């Protein structure tokens, strides 16, 4: 079962420039582990020892995974996962 994951521009250095990747897993945590296999370094950009980094938001569809159980959030085939990091800038 694979889920589409949308990669924001600042993290595409880790996905060879790809805007969308496919990853397998029944939970967000499993999905990120699978992403790490193909795109080493991405886990560290998303997670710290406590879970999803506090300045990173991950959505399943429009829903914030913080409120869906965090790394235990269920993901299903056909779901679209979107990563939104905090950014500064805009001068």
């Amino acid at each position: 079962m694979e889920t589409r994951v949308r990669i924001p521009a600042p993290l595409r250095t880790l996905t060879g420039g790809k805007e969308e990747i496919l990853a397998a897993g029944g939970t967000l945590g499993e999905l990120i582990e699978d992403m790490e296999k193909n795109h080493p370094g991405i886990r560290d950009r998303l997670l710290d020892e406590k879970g999803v980094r506090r300045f990173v938001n991950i959505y399943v569809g429009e829903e914030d995974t913080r409120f869906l159980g965090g790394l235990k959030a269920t993901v299903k085939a056909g779901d679209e996962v979107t990563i939104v990091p905090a950014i500064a800038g805009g001068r």
Partner: protein
Amino acid sequence: MSDLATKRVLLVGVGGLGAPAAIVLARAGVGTIGIADADAVELSNLHRQILFEDADVGSPKVDAARDAIPRWAGDARPFVVVHRTRLLPDNARQIVREYDLVVEGSDNFATKFMTADACALERVAVVHGSAVRWHGTAFAVAATGGPCYRCLFEDIPHEHAPSCAEAGVMGPVVGIVAALQADLALRLLAGEPVAGDLVTFDGKTDVHRRHRVARRDDCPLCGTARIQTPIRTVDAARYAAPSCDVSA
């Protein structure tokens, strides 16, 4: 939107986000536009800070904007208020409390979090905007409180910040984010239920996405749970600048 003429909107930063947003808000008929900025116009700003012209290079941005906004506003004739300073811990609350809404277009996390704190404490609506390279976001927060910027991003990133002010911006991307900010600001002022909307824009694919941000019960700024360190003041120590990760 005729009652816009009675509304007061503050631009925190009149750069790549604040300058285009100023034009939209002025033309829409916002009655008072405040500008807080301490920088001068630079030649390298002009491609995206479209409020300004070549002759403005070297002038304080607040002066150039004060002169330019009425030119762009046509018949709307907004009143322009100049704050010749950055928003700082010791002036943030006093400045934002004079306004109905703040458009935050600063280029650093410290100012973003400080603006969020000041606006929440003073019960002022705020629309945050950011753009780095090809990625942009806009986020609307109601005057009544959360979900707020700290519900979304919790605290200033001190490690692995995915990007930073020095990483550079693409003119069209900041222009689009500025327009999104102005749109969210006008809709908040009109009473539409856009508070909690996070809109992202990807300049590589030209795709917009909207997410709904929920209030965190344990948010130190707007949460309702009893926590040890709620934010009740704008304290300089809270906004120590993180190191900049330009490799992101």
